[in-house]
């Protein structure tokens, strides 16, 4: 079921503004996002796990995630693990530099040769991890791999965008004055509609099964929330049908 949504890998990078290795981690992440695997990767700023909303905190539950950290404090890894989900893979620039005997990395705003080499090596390593992760089946329900499924796609250069302000799309409902955020519902509606699944009891059951992968629905709100989701999908379907007719 979860496979219906497009699979991508999330890249979360160290924000280490005080270290040159932090710059390496950000530039390596950007190289993966923009040049090496633009179709397969997305990113989010680490502080959004706290400063953002539920959709942002759901990031690593929704995407298998690679963290790129500048130093052994491993802020990106620990932050992602603490606020979202355990990363699927990680890279630490200081470890990489030591393993490869790159020498001292210097220059926060203008990296030296060792820093630039570290960017290339870290980006290549992360790209390999992306391939590995997408070659396996990532279960969003379990937050872990379940089976292998090799993947082979060409990449092209694009501009990376972060998830600022959006994270995973959410839909808001209000029940008895209380607000509820349903993570990933807009994506699910798009997917079900794209598969031409018209609103029905069966479709609703499938949608709710998917909704439960990303959201906890409290028993006391279950009936009201399912009614809201049912109505929302009917409205979404009608809007889409109208757009199709106009085109």
């Amino acid at each position, binding site marked *: 079921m979860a496979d219906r949504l497009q699979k991508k890998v999330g890249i979360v990078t160290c924000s*280490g503004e005080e270290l040159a290795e932090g710059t390496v981690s*950000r530039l390596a992440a950007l190289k993966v996002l923009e040049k090496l695997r633009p179709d397969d990767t997305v990113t989010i*700023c680490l502080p*959004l796990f706290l400063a953002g909303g539920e959709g942002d905190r759901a990031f690593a539950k929704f995407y298998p995630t690679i963290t790129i950290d500048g130093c052994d404090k491993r802020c*990106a890894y620990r932050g992602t693990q603490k606020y979202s989900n355990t990363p699927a893979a990680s890279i630490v620039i200081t470890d990489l530099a030591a393993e490869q005997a790159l020498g001292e990395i210097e220059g*926060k705003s203008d990296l030296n040769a060792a820093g630039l080499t570290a960017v290339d090596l870290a980006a290549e390593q992360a790209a390999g991890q992306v391939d590995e992760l997408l070659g396996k089946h990532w279960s969003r329900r379990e937050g872990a791999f379940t089976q292998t499924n090799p993947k082979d796609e060409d990449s092209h250069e694009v501009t990376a965008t*972060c998830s600022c302000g959006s994270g995973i799309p959410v839909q808001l409902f209000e029940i008895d004055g209380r607000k509820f955020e349903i993570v990933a519902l807009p994506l699910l509606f798009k997917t079900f509609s794209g598969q031409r699944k018209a609103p029905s009891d069966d479709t609703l059951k499938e949608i709710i099964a998917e909704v439960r992968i990303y959201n906890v629905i409290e028993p006391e709100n279950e009936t009201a929330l399912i009614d809201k989701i049912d109505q929302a999908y009917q409205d979404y379907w009608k809007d889409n049908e109208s757009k199709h007719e106009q085109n």
Partner: protein
Amino acid sequence: MSKEKKVIIIPCSGVGKSFGTVSRMAAYQVTEDDRPATTQLVPLALLVLGDEEARETVENNPVVVIDGCQLACAKKMVLESGGTVSKEMAVLDFYRQNRELKPQGISQLNEGGKKLASVIAAAVDLVVDELTEEGGKNG
């Protein structure tokens, strides 16, 4: 991190937008070139993780935040960490006042972005001077 009183500069850690890079470049200019003796950069990630030393630093020193977008992560994290924001700067506000300096590029800022970072850094320098002067008078 130094225990000595300094003005703490916290830029946005935005990875995917030019405005994030501008905020970092401005912070580097202030802390490394313009006011290295009176300022200190604290990375946002340490505040996200609740690092004790970083929290203590923002609690006990004046803080200037330079946020890259309206989500204002830097400001929110300082407040969340028990600190007080002495001055809040937003890259977007400076861009609105300097439309000719449109930042482009993330890993390599264009000239407009670099100039915008310098404009912001100059404004931060003034705030740092005010804060350190006040600190001197009070202290």
